[in-house]
């Protein structure tokens, strides 16, 4: 019987994307390792440092994670090229936000169209939102994330979270959402009172 060693380079883009769609976070680690040196070289050449490069790549991978979930997602280049294009667009936005000069030649790029309309989530107010989600409990957090973020259907959610069936999962989702809604409304009321 022959033994074959398969390195991450042997994984096709299609396979990686399918795994990402299934929620396999290990693929993000693989892409992070594979792309870090390229992004680091790019950022350090363009007014950034190593830590900027790491943060930038992480933000880009989060965008990839979300993009592959869109039904109309279609990869028109190699996955690594796509990640590079997203990173470049995000880095340009960052430089502009910091008021740094960006040269014309630096902006001109024949890959930039690959990542048109790149969102920027780096300004998320993570502390406040994490607090909300922690208050509703782990099961609710998982359920709402699978439904609203991963866009998974109720049958799959029921199977993954060990609910009896899709209907039970749906009822639970309703309760969880109401809990979160109350917290958000309370936050709004408190803000109104302060204002």
């Amino acid at each position, binding site marked *: 019987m022959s033994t074959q060693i398969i390195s991450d380079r042997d994984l096709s883009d299609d396979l990686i994307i399918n795994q990402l769609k299934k929620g396999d976070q290990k693929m*993000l680690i693989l892409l992070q390792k594979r792309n870090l040196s390229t992004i680091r070289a790019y950022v350090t050449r363009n007014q950034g440092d190593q830590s900027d490069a*790491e943060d930038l790549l992480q933000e880009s991978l989060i965008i990839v994670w979300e993009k592959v979930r869109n039904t109309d997602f279609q990869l028109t280049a190699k996955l690594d090229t796509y990640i590079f294009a997203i990173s470049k667009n995000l880095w340009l936005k960052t430089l502009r936000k910091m008021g740094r000069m960006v040269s014309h030649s630096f902006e001109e790029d*024949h890959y930039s169209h690959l990542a048109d309309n790149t969102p920027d989530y780096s300004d998320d107010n993570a502390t406040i*939102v994490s607090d909300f989600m922690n208050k509703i409990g782990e099961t609710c957090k998982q359920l709402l994330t699978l439904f*609203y973020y991963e866009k998974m259907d109720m049958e799959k959610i029921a199977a993954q979270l060990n609910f009896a069936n899709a209907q039970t999962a749906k009822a639970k989702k309703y309760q969880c959402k109401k809990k979160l*809604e109350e917290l958000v409304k309370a936050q709004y009321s408190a803000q109104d009172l302060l204002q």
Partner: protein
Amino acid sequence: MEETNTYRDEQIENYLLGNMSQVDRESFERQINNDDNLAKEVEINREIINIIASTKRQDLRTYLKTSASESKNINSSWWAKNKYLSLAASVLVLLGLSVIIYSNRGITPTIEMLSNDKPIDTLENKQKVYNPQDNEKEKQENLAINRKKDLNRNIEEIDKTNKNDQYVAIENANGLDTQMVVNKKMTTTSAPIITENEFVIDEISSLNSGNKLGSQKPAQKLKVTFKPGNNPAYVYTGADLILTGIRETEVEKFVNGINNDLFLITNDKKLYNLQKTQSQQMLLPITKQMIRSKFGL
């Protein structure tokens, strides 16, 4: 009343998650504009979805950062623990590299065995066997016979070991001979896709007007000029081939293959067969049938 609320909740949800048709969406937006309570409900639901998404993003960030720092720690602790070993390894690598560079200097790419134990006779080795004073014609004949024997022997040997293995064929690049051997190469599950890393591109121009390299619809046919020697070749490219980040590997020679397809030999002594498939350019494994057919064996 609860049923009405549930229906409304579902409507809001479908609206925010993009699960509504264009007509329903427009109609719902009109309702929002005319109903302040509904507008407020939609805003709260939008906020809830944002909170869920932000939390997940934060979890992903933490996951990636943890992995990156673990990876750094492993690397740094390994280097710290193995300071002397690392130093010794570096010296060995440098020595190895200098031996390789020195031994390759000035030698044209010739036969190389990738993973066979037995060395294969090269043209240079054969020239040592034959007396330079011999009759030229006799020498050439003997050379050709021995060459053919060697090639057949190697094919036979590989036949015995594993019939399913794939082989890389390398032609003597001096252009005078068709001396060839078949090297056993690691087996792959499928033919690897040729990437931009496998050749140096000197000049690229599109033959199809209106197509631009790097645009979403790349040219179907590109004229690619390789270094060195400006040997022109036509290489078909598919939608997912973007030519960038070229590694410094040079093309030594082009060879016309069977059915007018193109073989190219790189300086690192690999032979590639460029053929167009439906969507991609493939680096096809060279089979012994192809070699026999090409060289009339």
